[in-house]
């Protein structure tokens, strides 16, 4: 589904990703871990198409097409969803309205009929219920004045509404209480299907207890320096990143 | 009585530490202003003919100008005929060649002010030019500076020794008739400092000028010109004091800075002119025009000021950001207590592309002090991607003072991003409680909070000055920041 080949990307002239390779097949869940500043968020923003990040070389193929040619919204239409590490506040834009617009834009691109407000509200309510979430968030402006946890819940709500093909979760578990963590896991697990794939960026093995990853990668210095199965996450949790880096250097 | 009020009370009783008079025989021209006085000044200073012509031109323009009234200041009309426009210590008539020739009484004055001129006592790395009433009396570290190619001398000397530089730049940033006080200065300025840093040179030490007004009824009109050639760097410090006198004295200075491509000028001021007594009697009227031109790409001019003195302060150190990617900064702490009034701020003119400016202004008002921030941020049509951030905060100590904010923001380019924030409040009860809950006394808490309030500005000052500024703030707000 997703093939990232020797990807180099930079921002403001500073190289962040230095030859990253990653292949994700339909149905898989990949976890990416790695020290702060290693380029995890950069990778997710490059995948989502943030123009600020310049891809200097390498390629990204998504469902057989060159992803780098697509505008951010086109990528969303093709089923790419990113839950932001730091969702931005959009004062004055009502959350429900925003969700509705977003869903209809994607449905339209997929050739599905747009939902009217009644049907949309019905859908949102069912999602909220399935996720055990409060309706209060809907009435507010997008992320404005939301607590850290509320922002993350809002991201998950959006994900479950938009039903992406490839979901990228950038530290969606950070700053969450245990209930919220379960909500996130539930959102992800409900979405799990042989057609869909996920890329979960996290610092904590805890989340991976709820979401069983197929592959765990370690990103460091802008590259994936090690990949393994779930046990790698446990090992990282126990020993930190130092040992991998040392091991790298020794090799 | 709450803590803040008690501090104000204590402050009232605090004297002005620099308020002594030095008894020195001096050469002072009779009060009054006409073309003859200007000819006299020019002759006294052995100026070349072009300078006299330039002064007379400025004087004629000044006669047609009106004293500005827009500032948030109240003071009686200044009688320009009652001021003496020239006063020089007799012994310094011929500029001293070395410190040995400087009148020992003068040296003692500077020592009392904490500015030792004897080289062995001088803080390592600070070259000092001292201006006493109208003339520059001593410049230290000349040799070391000359070796680096840096010119640091009095402006009268520069007119004689470096006429081409003076003629090329004098009046180019602050034109003769820029404003009423600048025109007066152009006509009668008596001395000041000249600095030239050659291309690529990082000035090996901090340069510093101390100004002191000593004589009664004199005005001080100095003019400073600093040119930083391509890729050079200079940090310049300016300090001011005056004796305690009942009548008001006028200080109308002009400072021009020119930073060429990749050059940086850091200009710091600690202004502690005599503020007058607490009833508002006496004190310096400080009407100063300071402006810097970032003439070349990537040039940077940074103004930092700590204004605690003067009865009246009228001062807007500004930056013209002409070069692409040039940077202007203004950091200011202004304290008004007693009957002091300050109307101060800055102007940032964004002309070049990617120009950036930062304004941080901290006003502290106590007693009946009136403190106004007045600032202009202008983004011209061609100033692509210009950025400005302005933060203006006022702290009120006492219920009879005033704090005012008058920003003007003009934006004519959509790629610009301008942000302005201002707050006014007294010291927060929550903050005080928090500090006290951690065991601090009320006094220490206030001091800590006021210092914290000024921190963003103090951290911009060179080390030696930062210490002095903190001490000065402590004295100015005795008790409140003890």
């Amino acid at each position, binding site marked *: 589904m997703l093939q990232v080949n020797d990807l180099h990307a930079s921002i403001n002239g500073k190289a962040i990703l230095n030859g990253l390779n990653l292949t994700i097949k339909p149905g898989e869940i990949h976890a990416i871990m790695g020290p702060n500043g290693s380029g995890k968020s950069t990778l997710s923003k490059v995948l989502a198409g943030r123009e600020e990040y310049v891809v200097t070389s390498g390629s990204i193929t998504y469902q057989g097409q060159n992803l780098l040619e697509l505008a951010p919204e086109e990528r969303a239409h093709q089923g790419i969803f990113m839950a932001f590490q730091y969702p931005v506040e*959009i004062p004055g834009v009502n959350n429900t309205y925003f969700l509705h617009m977003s869903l209809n*834009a994607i449905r339209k691109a997929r050739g599905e009929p747009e939902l009217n407000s009644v049907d949309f509200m019905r859908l949102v309510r069912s999602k909220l219920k399935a996720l055990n979430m409060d309706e209060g968030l809907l009435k507010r402006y*997008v992320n404005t004045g939301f607590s850290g946890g509320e922002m993350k819940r809002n991201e998950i709500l959006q994900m479950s509404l938009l039903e992406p093909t490839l979901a990228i979760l950038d530290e969606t578990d950070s700053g969450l209480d245990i209930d919220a963590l379960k909500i996130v896991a539930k959102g992800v697990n409900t979405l799990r299907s042989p057609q869909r794939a996920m890329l979960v960026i996290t610092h904590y093995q805890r989340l991976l207890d709820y979401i069983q990853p197929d592959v765990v990668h370690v990103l460091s210095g802008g590259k994936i320096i090690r990949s393994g199965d779930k046990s790698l996450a446990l090992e990282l949790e126990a020993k930190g990143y130092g040992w991998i880096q040392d091991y790298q250097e020794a090799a | 009585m709450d803590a803040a009020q008690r501090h104000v009370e204590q402050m009232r009783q605090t004297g002005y530490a620099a308020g002594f008079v030095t008894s020195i025989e001096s050469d002072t021209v009779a009060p009054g202003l006409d073309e003859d006085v200007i000819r006299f000044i020019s002759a006294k200073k052995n100026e070349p003919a072009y300078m006299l012509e330039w002064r007379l031109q400025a004087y004629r323009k000044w006669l047609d100008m009106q004293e500005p009234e827009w500032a948030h200041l109240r003071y009686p009309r200044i009688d320009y005929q009652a001021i003496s426009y020239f006063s020089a210590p007799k012994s310094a008539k011929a500029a001293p060649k070395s410190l040995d020739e400087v009148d020992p009484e003068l040296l003692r004055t500077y020592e009392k002010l904490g500015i030792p001129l004897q080289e062995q006592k001088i803080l390592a790395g600070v070259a000092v030019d001292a201006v006493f009433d109208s003339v520059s009396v001593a410049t230290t570290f000349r040799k070391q500076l000359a070796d680096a190619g840096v010119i640091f001398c009095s402006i009268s000397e520069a007119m004689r020794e470096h006429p081409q530089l003076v003629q090329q730049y004098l009046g180019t940033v602050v034109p003769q008739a820029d404003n009423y006080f600048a025109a007066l200065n152009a006509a009668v300025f008596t001395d000041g400092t000249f600095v030239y840093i050659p291309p690529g040179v990082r000035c090996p030490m901090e340069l510093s000028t101390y100004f002191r007004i000593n004589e009664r009824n004199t005005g001080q009109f100095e003019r400073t010109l600093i040119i930083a050639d391509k890729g050079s760097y200079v940090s310049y410090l300016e300090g001011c004091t005056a004796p305690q006198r009942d009548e008001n004295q006028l200080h109308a200075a002009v400072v021009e800075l020119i930073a060429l491509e990749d050059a940086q000028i850091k200009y710091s001021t600690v202004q502690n002119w005599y503020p007058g007594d607490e009833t508002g009697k006496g004190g310096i009227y400080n009407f100063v025009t300071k402006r810097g031109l970032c003439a070349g790409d990537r040039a940077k001019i940074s103004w930092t000021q700590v204004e605690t003195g003067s009865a009246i302060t009228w001062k807007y150190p500004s930056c013209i950001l002409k070069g692409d990617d040039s940077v202007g900064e203004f950091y200011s702490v202004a304290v008004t207590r007693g009957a002091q009034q300050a109307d101060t701020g800055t102007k940032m003119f964004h002309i070049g592309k990617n120009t950036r400016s930062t304004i941080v202004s901290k006003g502290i008002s106590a007693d009946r002090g009136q403190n106004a921030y007045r600032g202009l941020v202008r983004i011209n049509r061609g100033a692509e991607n210009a950025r400005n951030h302005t933060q203006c905060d006022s702290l009120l100590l006492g219920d009879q003072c005033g704090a005012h904010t008058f*920003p003007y923001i003009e934006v004519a380019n959509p790629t610009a991003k*301008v942000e*302005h*924030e201002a707050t006014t409040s007294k010291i927060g009860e929550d903050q005080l409680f928090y500090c006290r809950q951690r065991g601090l006394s009320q006094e220490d808490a206030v001091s800590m909070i006021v210092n914290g309030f000024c921190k963003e500005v103090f951290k911009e000052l060179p080390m030696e000055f930062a210490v002095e500024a903190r001490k000065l703030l402590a004295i100015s707000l005795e008790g409140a920041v003890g």
Partner: protein
Amino acid sequence: MNTPDILHHYRQLAADQTTMAHDWHNRRQLHAVMQVQELPLPERGQESWRYTPLPPLLDTAFQPAALEQDLLFADDIEQLRLTPAASLRIVLHNGFFLPELSNLPDDGSIRIESLRSALANGDKTVQAHLGELSGEQSHLFHALNTAMLGEGVYLHIAAGAQLAQPIEVLHVSLSFASEYLAQPRLLVVVGEGAQASIVEQYASLADVLCLNNTVTEIFLHAGANLEHSRLQNESLRTRHLASLYVQQAEGSHYRNTTLAFGGAWSRTEFHVRFSGTGANCRLNGFYLAGDKQSHDMHLNVVHNLPGCSSQSHFKGILQGHSKAVFDGNIEVKPAAQKTDARLSNANLLLSRDAEIDTKPRLEIYADDVQCSHGTTVGQIDEEMLFYLRSRGIPHAQAVNMICTGFADEVIGTCGWESLENLAREVLARQLAAAMVAGG
């Protein structure tokens, strides 16, 4: 016409008033006639006119509008109204009060009548209040409005009245003449503890060059609560000068939302002061300056008494070749301890040819106060744009959404849905038009 001629023209208009036999003249009108003879025309040198483009106001010698019969019909009102047909409604045509098209109250708690007749009947409240606020710090056009007072409208809400429905004030510009001067005048008195809302709209049914010089004085008695929403949606050749004066007594609440969309040139002045403590004033404003438009917002909130609060929140979007001015002044007098005053102004600049001049001022003479102001000028935030696009929303629509959201923070404070929806429609139309025009 050149400047001295224009000045002479208005002085003559005011002076002519003295030759008419007015038994209803009051002191302040005479004073205003005199003021017109003395006041200069607005000029750049005056601080409050520093940034205002003056030619649209001063290039033309506008002639007083005459009452044109049989031009405005009930159908027109039906089409323009924003409140239910049965609601109370005050209709003014080029500044003339038209009782026959208005919907006047029949119970005693609300009075709506012409100022002229109230003065003629010797109404003490009107005598005391008319011109009481507008006479201070006057400029020529304030004084001209008072000097040339015609019918005018007096709205009085009795103490304790709680109105469930808003009172609509509809100003219609429509004339066969051109270059005319309309001078609506309103006096609103809200009695002790009364609660009311006013929905005010300025609309044009013809596109002619005219100057609408309106003055409104509002008095809130102790504990009164007034919600006041104003939509200025006049034609693109109109010049609109609106001056609002508000005086609030103890514990009163006033909320004003002003939306400026129309007119080639508009300037709205808000003058607020307090006659009692513990009062709260909220001023919200939004201006959309399209191509060849200029909007001005002037605030003058004087905290002269302790314990009052004010929140002023203004936003603007500039497109095409346009200009906007925001001049917000908050003054806290020495007596006004425990004042809480907030002022904010945010601007989105969408075009290379737009210019914004903003001047948020605080003048504070008391220490136990909380005052702040914030100003921003910028383009649409790239982060926001990206966020929306990453959710599948196309670029143009995302821009539109952000602008709409930006404006909606103000529009949504009107508290009257049909007014808000009309404003949203106008906004959407203008944004779409600008998008097509490419900026």
